[in-house]
C-alpha cells in the first residue's frame, strides 16, 4: 500500500499535467500553475526536512566519532548559531518587530563577517586550482587534446591586451583569426553546437525518465525495495 498509493498519485498527476499542457481548456486550464503552488508550499517544508536531515547526519557522525567528526561540531554549531540569531532576533534594533537582517543584528553581523568571507574564500581558491590543473592537464597529447588546448588558449587570451596585440595586425581577409573574433566564434559556433546537443540529449533523458516514473518502472524515489 505504501508503494501503490504514491505510484497511483504519480501516474494521475503526470497524466493530468500532460493533458493540461496540450488542452488549454477547462477543467485542465491553469492546472499546471495550481500544481506549481503546491510545489512551492512543499518546497518551503523541504527547508525543515533539509535542516532535520543535516542535524541527523552530523549528530550521528559526532556520536559515533566517525571520520572528521570534529568538523561536524562546527557545522552543527554554525547551524544553531545562525538559526538562533535569526529566530530570536538578537541585537535587532526595535526588538521583535524589527527585521532580523537589519543593521546591528547578530544575524547580519555573522552573515557579513563570517558567511560572506568564507564563501568568497572557497570560490576564490578556484583560481589557484584552475591554474595548477591547466598547467598539468592542457598537454597536446592527442589530436583532441590539442584542439581543446588551442580553444582554451584563445578563450584565456581573449580579455588580455596580449590577445589583442598578438593578432590585431592581421590583414582584413584573415581578421577572423584575430583572437577576440576567434574567441567569439568558438563560443557561438562549436560551443553552442555542443551545448545544444547536450541539451537535446538531456531533454530526451528527462522525457524517458518521466515516463518511467509515471509508469512505475522507476521506483527509486519511493525508497529501498522490499520495505513497502
Amino acid at each position, binding site marked *: 500500500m505504501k508503494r501503490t498509493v504514491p505510484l497511483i498519485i504519480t501516474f494521475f498527476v503526470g497524466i493530468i499535467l500532460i493533458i493540461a499542457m496540450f488542452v488549454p481548456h477547462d477543467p485542465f486550464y*491553469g492546472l499546471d*500553475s495550481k500544481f*506549481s503552488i503546491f510545489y512551492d508550499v512543499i*518546497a518551503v517544508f523541504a527547508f525543515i526536512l533539509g535542516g532535520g536531515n543535516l542535524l541527523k547526519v552530523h549528530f550521528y557522525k559526532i556520536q559515533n566519532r566517525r571520520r572528521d567528526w570534529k568538523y561536524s561540531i562546527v557545522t552543527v554549531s554554525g547551524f544553531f548559531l545562525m538559526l538562533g540569531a535569526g529566530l530570536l532576533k538578537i541585537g535587532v534594533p526595535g526588538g521583535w518587530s524589527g527585521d532580523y537582517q537589519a543593521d546591528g543584528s547578530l544575524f547580519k553581523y555573522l552573515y557579513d563577517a563570517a558567511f560572506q568571507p568564507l564563501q568568497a574564500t572557497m*570560490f576564490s581558491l578556484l583560481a589557484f586550482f584552475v591554474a595548477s590543473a591547466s*598547467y598539468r592537464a592542457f598537454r597536446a597529447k592527442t589530436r583532441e587534446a590539442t584542439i581543446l588546448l588551442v580553444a582554451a588558449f584563445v578563450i*584565456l587570451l581573449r580579455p*588580455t*591586451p596580449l590577445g589583442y596585440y598578438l593578432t590585431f595586425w592581421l590583414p582584413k581577409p584573415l581578421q577572423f583569426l584575430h583572437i577576440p573574433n576567434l574567441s567569439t566564434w568558438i563560443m*557561438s559556433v562549436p560551443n553552442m553546437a555542443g551545448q545544444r546537443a547536450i541539451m537535446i540529449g538531456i531533454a530526451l533523458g528527462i522525457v524517458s525518465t518521466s515516463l518511467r516514473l509515471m509508469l512505475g518502472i522507476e521506483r527509486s524515489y519511493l525508497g529501498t525495495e522490499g520495505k513497502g
Partner: protein
Amino acid sequence: MADRQEVTIIERLGTVDRRYVFLLIAVAVIIPLIVHYTTAIPTSAIVQSLFDKIESMPPGSKILISFDYGPSTEPENQPMANAVTRHALEKGHRIYLVALWATGPRQSQKLIDDVIKVEFPDKVYGVDWIHLGYKAGNQGLINTLLSDFRTMYTTDISGNAIDGLPMMKDIHTLRDFDLIIGLGSGFPGTKEWIQFAGDPGDIPVGGGTTAVMAPLLYPYYPKQMVGFMGGLQGAAEYEYALVKIYPKYAMRSRIASTTMGPQVTAHLVIVGFIILGNITFLIEKRRKRKYR
C-alpha cells in the same frame, strides 16, 4: 653529461611544484590590485545586445531583476547588477528586485545601499524601485509567477502590502514585465527564467552569469535571450558600453573594469604555464623517440 643535465632541467620545468604555481597566481592577482591596473574591454555583440535592449525601452518600462547568487560569486555578479540597475534607473525604468536564492536578498540589499540610495536618491521606493525579496520554489515559483504574481508576492521584503505601492498596480503576472534579467551562478538561474518565463510567456529575458556558466547559455541567444553578460568580463563590457553613452559614470561604473586587471594577469600566468608545460612535454616526447 650536458644532455643528462638538460633532461633534469626539462623534467623540473615540466613538473613545477604546485605551490610555485599558487604563489605566482597570488602575485599575479595582488600586484594589479595594489597598482590599480585596469583594462578596457570593448563590448561584445552579446553584451551590447542586452545594453541596447535596456537603452531602447521607453522610460517607465518594468524590469524584473532576479538575484540568484550568493556571496561566493559576488565579485562576478554584483558588478553586473550595479551596471544594469544604474543603466535602467538612468533611463527612467522601474525595477523590481526578487530572488530565487535565499542568499539573493542580501546581494540586492547591497545594490540598494551602494547604487540606488547613493546615486539615485531622488528615486522613490514603491514608485521607481521595489525590493520583493526571496521566495522558495525554484522553477516552480517562476511557473506560479507566470500565471499569478500576487499569489506568491503579497508583500515586499519588509512586509508592506504590495497593493499599496504604485508600481505594483499593473503587475499581475510575469507577462506584465517588459524585461526579466536573471543574474545567477547556478540552479535556479537565468536558464530557468528563460525556460519557465521567457519562452512560455513570450517575455524578453536577459541575464548575467559567472564565467563557468556562460557557455551553457549561448544556445539561447539571440532568439530566447536578448543578450547576456558572461562573468566579470561581461560585466566589464557592460560598464564600457554604459560609460561610452553616459560618460558621467566613468568614475562610478568601473568595479568590473578594475577587478578585470587581476583576472587578465592571472590569465596570462595560466597561459604562460600552459606554454611551459607543453614545451617541456614536446621536448620530452622528442627525446623519448630519439632514444627508442
